């Protein structure tokens, strides 16, 4: 660590934890309240009673065991998807490709399970699925990294476009080569029981949650306490300075994106082997974009990502209650999600000079 970095690090540490945490909490509470009020107005316009809607959401989402567990199930891929944005962001890269990398992770996992069939033991299939999913996710992000390094193509654009290629690839596979039966909704064969992710005992929450929280800790340590983490943040801060001080910037860019892709691929594997068990047209729908926004809300920090992922998962689970208790379509919950994001994005950050 350089002398300046040590000084900067020390400065951060001298600020008491409380002084750092309180504004963050205040920001969230403020944003949530503004969003809730605006959403109430819209519900009123639609003739629904916001009080009924909110108490319904509270009672059926947070006070019952099953929906609460469902929140933890749904936050798992969001945590990994958001970490997949956070690692490249540290190197100054914008990974908008979580959506495609998660789909590719699901495709990799499903491909591995189809290849091994019913004969292999559960452990072997699980292991193969994890490896293939992470490789597939890394490959998809690697395409964007290669395009950037070889042809100077911006990774925000290429990762975004690759999302749609991945989706079309998924649809191609489930409509023809991997389709289980020619009738009914196109889908792949269900994953064999022995290869499904085990659950935390006494719950319906799969082990992916433990893995995701563990990886959030690992990412935190790697980004803040290792040489590699320091190097990519230097490359992300000022590529020219990094080059002059002898860092291999292309390798750093490539590695940050590959790791991001692998994390998103793992999210796809967990969604496949822990939640959906088969690939359908809607596999992983919007997980990548939601993760991207969760990462933004968390300012690209691993531990706040856990909170943001929980909030988004809770919103998603509460959409059922919105439909049942308030009688408005489930997808309306996106309004509340978006309002929270807009409140946080627009009205809590210091005003910066245009762009960014």
């Amino acid at each position: 660590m350089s002398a300046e970095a040590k000084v900067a690090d020390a400065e951060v540490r001298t600020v008491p934890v409380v002084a750092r945490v309180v504004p963050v909490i205040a920001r969230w509470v403020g944003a949530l309240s503004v969003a809730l009020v605006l959403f109430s107005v819209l519900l009123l316009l639609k003739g629904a009673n916001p009080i009924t809607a909110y108490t319904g959401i509270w009672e059926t989402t947070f006070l019952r065991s099953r929906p609460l567990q469902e929140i933890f199930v749904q936050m798992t891929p969001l945590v990994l998807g958001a970490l997949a944005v956070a690692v490249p962001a540290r190197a100054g890269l914008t990974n908008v490709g979580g959506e495609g990398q998660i789909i590719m992770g699901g495709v990799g996992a499903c491909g591995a399970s189809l290849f091994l069939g019913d004969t292999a033991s559960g452990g072997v299939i699980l292991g193969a699925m994890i490896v293939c999913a992470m490789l597939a996710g890394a490959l998809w992000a690697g395409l964007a990294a290669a395009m950037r390094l070889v042809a100077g193509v911006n990774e925000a654009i290429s990762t975004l476009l690759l999302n749609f290629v991945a989706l079309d690839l998924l649809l191609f596979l489930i409509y023809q080569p991997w389709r289980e039966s020619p009738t009914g909704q196109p889908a792949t064969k269900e994953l064999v029981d022995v290869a499904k992710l085990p659950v935390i005992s006494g719950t319906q929450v799969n082990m992916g949650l433990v893995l995701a929280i563990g990886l959030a800790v690992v990412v935190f340590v790697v980004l803040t306490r290792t040489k590699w983490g320091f190097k990519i943040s230097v490359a992300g801060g000022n590529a020219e300075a990094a080059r002059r001080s002898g860092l291999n910037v292309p390798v750093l860019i490539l590695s940050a994106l590959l790791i991001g892709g692998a994390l998103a691929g793992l999210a796809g594997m967990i969604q496949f082997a822990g939640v959906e068990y088969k690939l359908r047209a809607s596999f992983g729908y919007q997980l990548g974009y939601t993760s991207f926004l969760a990462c933004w809300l968390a300012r690209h920090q691993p531990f706040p990502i856990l909170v943001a992922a929980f909030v988004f998962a809770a919103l998603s689970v509460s959409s059922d209650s919105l439909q049942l208790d308030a009688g408005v379509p489930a997808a309306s919950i996106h309004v509340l999600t978006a309002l929270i994001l807009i409140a946080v994005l627009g009205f809590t950050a210091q005003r910066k000079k245009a762009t960014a």
Partner: protein
Amino acid sequence: MSLFVDVLSGGVSGGTSIMYAGVGETVSERAGVINLGTEGSMLVGALGSYAVGVETGNPWVGVLAGAAAGGALALLHGYLVVRRGASQFASGLSLLFLALGLTSLFGATYVGQPVVGFDTWEIPLLSDLPVLGPVLFQHDPLLYLGYVLVPTVWFVLFKTRIGLLVRTAGERADSLTVHGYSVDAMRIGAVTAGGVLAGMGGAHLATAYANAWFENMVAGRGFIAVALVIFATWSPWRVLGGAYLFGCAIALGPALQARAFEINQFLLDAVPFVLTLAVLTVLGKRTLSASPAELKRVFENAPPSG
């Protein structure tokens, strides 16, 4: 009709909504702002035009409403990124979610409702031409309006003072400030204009192309438009050609299936994205040099890492 005519005609009518949105996004990006919320502007434009069309019975009033809705959403994006310094990607995606939610909330009552959409206007004489007639001149009036859109936007962007100011906001914002103009106003104006056009694209989709409203009906066309602008390297004319080209790629599948060819639609659906990626890779650094300078800064400015 021959397969050839079928595909071309389908490409022109299916490509029109993408072309409107693509031309709008070109204006926005020329001023230095990328708007991933284009998909959202198209969605609110589609529902706005459809709902107002149903209520008033007049599709033209519907288009105005769709344009206004699309513009309003883009205005919010402009405000957030220009005045509040929000991330362009995060803001655009947030507004996409907002549009998905709003159109779901307010669109449910319009699912399955009949609308007085746009009729086909066969242009006298021209519509009788072989090939060109059915491909270009047997469509709805909103599509014909698209024919004059590109020359108009090109003229405004490249031959008028206001166009110069917009482009300067995207190329050398500082020199605009030096001359006493507001960069922020130019950018917000350009983004809003882009949203208006995306809203009209959505209106074409709902009230002329599909004649129906259903949830999430834009189905990625807004993102095709974003890809298209890069494919066309920020030229309105190439946006026009690219929109019809992408439209043809999408129309090819159904046309072949109607003739009992076994074809997997999804490989064709990927064509716009794969072509854009290919163009980016082949042109490489040359695409970057064609992009508005301030847009490059958007990409190079890393998100906060600490």
